């Protein structure tokens, strides 16, 4: 199983990862706390570990892991 982990200290909720994710499992939660205290990306189940989100992330907020 793969997971994309969002670093809440770096994410600014720009939404580029959500657009790029081929599985469309990333959403922007406008109320979640993050770097600017407003909005953060959230990942739900189903990650295939392709890393496209990490490639487009301008804030290096994404770590990909596989089990």
């Amino acid at each position: 199983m793969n997971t994309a982990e969002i670093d809440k200290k770096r994410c600014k909720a720009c939404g580029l990862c959500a657009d790029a994710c081929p599985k469309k499992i990333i959403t922007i939660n406008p109320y979640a706390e993050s770097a600017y205290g407003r909005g953060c990306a959230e990942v739900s189940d189903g990650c295939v570990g392709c890393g496209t989100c990490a490639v487009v992330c301008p804030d290096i907020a994404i770590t990909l892991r596989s089990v």
Partner: protein
Amino acid sequence: MKVIYEKPKSISDKTFHYCPGCGHGIAHRLVGEVMDELGIEDKTVAVVPVGCAVMAYDYFECDVMEAAHGRAPAVATGVKRCLPDKVVFSYQGDGDLAAIGTAETIHAAARGEGITVIFINNTIYGMTGGQMAPTTLPGQVTQTSPFGRDPYTQGWPLKMCEMLSTMTGPAYIERCATDTPAHIRAAKKAVKKAFTYQIERGAYSFVELLCACPTNWGMTPGEARDRVGSEMIPYYPLGIFRDICDIKEGK
């Protein structure tokens, strides 16, 4: 759990001050990844500009020098000549590199100075609030071209890669974009090649990265990313403009 991808070691833990969706972050990451892969973090000296990337010294884990506006290639020249074993790169915006620093840029290239130049072209002055840059596209609205840039009174945008590629000095010149995953992956290859040319040949290399500035373009991060592909790439075509290896092989 196996880590497939994580933040490069050459980039610090400090949160970037850049706006959401800003291309500078992607450019930083590419340089960081390349420093990691080549294992050159402890022998690299970055020369950072005046512009939004003025605080890049907080983010690159290598040694960093701050240059006066536009003078990064001159400072990098000094560093490289005093410490030829170091890997020296300048990181510059379009206002820095193509307006106030045009002379330094051109002459460092003409001398074939052994440095790498990472050029962030976002067609605008980001830090100072969105004034017209030499690279602003015809018709583009900025603070100082409120009716759109009129090339007949405000000049035509500078194409730096094309200009520098007429010279004998530079060994490698490529233009890449940071809009799509494929373009970003290609950009990383270009950055890596640029550093490799410096390390292996002591040669001058120049990589232009077309980047988004959502804030000063007045767009969302997604719209700004799309503008890079729809408006910038048609005017600033991507590709390799000069590669000394191809020239030697007669390609």
